[in-house]
């Protein structure tokens, strides 16, 4: 079994603010991240897929197919965007990196079969670094 990981980057802005909390509670909980004007990050995401070797290509994952999938499903909609205002999910859901990781995972799972119609490879996990110091990881099995 081989696990192949590809690393991608995008830059986006967000604001952490929960509609279920008061303004005071939001300020206390999220601090600077609650700034009404928003702020941004250079996000780094690692997408890992696992599978056996394809005998003809000597590869477990067609990285060009993975690149196209990630470019269309994640990079194009998120690159240089305001996540709260321009990505529909985050109109309701707070765009923490936990929720962002789950959203990326959901998008990739949804389109996975169109990029990889066979039994293998399978999406294994998503790792997202909001900054070099804050890193979040989600297993594909955690998402429906």
């Amino acid at each position: 079994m081989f696990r192949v990981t590809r690393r991608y980057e995008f830059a986006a802005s967000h604001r952490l603010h929960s509609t279920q909390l008061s303004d005071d509670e939001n300020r206390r909980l999220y601090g600077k991240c609650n700034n009404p004007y928003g702020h941004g990050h250079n996000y780094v995401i690692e997408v890992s897929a696992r599978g056996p070797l394809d005998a003809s290509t000597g590869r477990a994952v067609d990285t060009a197919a993975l690149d196209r999938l990630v470019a269309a499903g994640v990079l194009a909609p998120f690159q240089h965007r305001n996540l709260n205002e321009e990505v529909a999910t985050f109109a309701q859901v707070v765009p923490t990196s936990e929720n962002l990781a789950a959203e990326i995972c959901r998008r990739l799972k949804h389109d996975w079969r169109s990029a990889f119609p066979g039994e293998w490879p399978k999406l294994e996990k998503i790792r997202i670094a909001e900054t070099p110091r804050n890193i979040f990881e989600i297993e594909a099995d955690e998402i429906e």
Partner: protein
Amino acid sequence: MLITRKVEFSASHVCRNPALSDEENQRLFGLAANPKGHGHNYVVEVSLQGDPDPVTGMVLDLKELKEILNREIVGPYDHRFLNYEVPPFDRVIPTTENIVRDMWQRLEPHLPALHAIRLYETPDLFVDYFGEVPCSA
């Protein structure tokens, strides 16, 4: 406990399957199918799993691990054209997956505690290999 040592080497390769047409190779491997070859600065992370020896406090003496990695990996691979100079890549396509598997076969006889090898072809592409374990759902 896991201990990991990192080594680097630079090498060139071509990824193409001689049984396929030029167009098919181009479609499958893109720029990597260029018959003249191209190169990478590969980074290898070798992880061993074990309990520290009660006397030395070490899973394995890192000096010994360094010597094994230099002898088995860096020596044969560094500054080589893999397809022409490093068997089995005269007949096996030197994809990241096939290279990491070859490294496993080279290291396993010398490192009973071998747990995983991570091979970076570039900072944006790496493969983890744990030996011949079957794929589970």
